[in-house]
């Protein structure tokens, strides 16, 4: 990002709009979808940093995001979010895998079109960020604790995607 500020400004603006801009999904939910997709793509940097950001939208508590990324039947994860995670997981594999049944199941749990849209675009965007980070073999700390202050900054100060 620092190497190429011309593209970084728009990558940050996209993350800001997707994860912190107006949406019927909370930022904790959206950051958890980002962490879930990054974990499926085995991208350690994105997984651990967005896991920490999700936690800091929840007072620094990691239990919600960890329930989301583990895909367990945890009561903290609503049936609607679970249905959106099914869609996000399929987008991670390939957009064509999402079926009309997956979308109908999310709607039956109360998901709106904007929520379905946002789940698809967050999953698609993290298929980009993950490849960008790993394709250039960026430096990646492996200790989850190293990401906690970064996640706190992401949750409280955002991605700085200010246009111009």
């Amino acid at each position, binding site marked *: 990002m620092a190497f190429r500020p011309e593209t970084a400004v728009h990558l940050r603006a996209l993350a800001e709009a997707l994860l912190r801009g107006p949406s019927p999904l909370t930022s904790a939910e959206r950051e958890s979808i980002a962490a879930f997709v990054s974990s499926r793509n085995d991208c350690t940097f994105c997984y651990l940093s967005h896991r920490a950001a999700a936690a800091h939208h929840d007072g620094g508590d990691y239990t919600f995001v960890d329930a989301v990324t583990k895909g367990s039947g945890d009561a903290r994860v609503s049936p609607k979010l679970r249905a959106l995670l099914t869609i996000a997981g399929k987008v991670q594999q390939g957009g064509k895998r*999402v079926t009309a049944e997956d979308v109908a199941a999310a709607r039956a749990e109360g998901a709106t079109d904007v929520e379905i849209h946002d789940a698809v*675009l967050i999953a698609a965007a993290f298929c980009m960020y993950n490849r960008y980070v790993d394709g250039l073999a960026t430096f990646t700390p492996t200790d989850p604790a190293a990401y906690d202050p970064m996640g706190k900054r992401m949750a409280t100060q955002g991605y700085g995607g200010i246009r111009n």
Partner: protein
Amino acid sequence: MPHIALPDLPGIRGPMAFRPETARPLNDLVDVLLRGPNTLTPGERELIATFVSAENDCRYCQTIHGAIAAHHLGGNEALVVQVKADPERAAISDKLKALLVIAGKTAESGKLVTAADVERARQLGATDIEIHDTVLIAAVFCMCNRYVDGLDTSAPDDPAFYRQRAALVAENGYAASTLTGPSK
């Protein structure tokens, strides 16, 4: 029928009109990457976008970016077909062939790009910025392809639609063209 109720525009333009908040940074990003100042020509960059979209089997993206690539390359549609089918045998530079190897691997997974792939591109004259931009173009189209197919957006069949649209985008850019021009 798209999975959600989108405005009646083909491909990525439906969800972009549906959600302008995210369309703006997406268009700005693609304008910088594919049309901004660069030692790779717009035609070369559109070929990378087309190749990745074909690898991901996204019909709308590979057809529209293929048409834009051809427009930038003096109407050479045969070259676009050749790059999609077998870039190693296409009439493009060895440097671009090496960059397409990196792009193809990025499309599968960023982790597949090796130091040897990058070294080969460097030896054929690729700069760090060109390698960076190739990885990011490939990554961005892994996003756009999933966005377009994940919502099951529509894609016109008529090649004339894409040629017309390509001329408009090549002239005016992505952000300026999203909501303008013929729909279907």
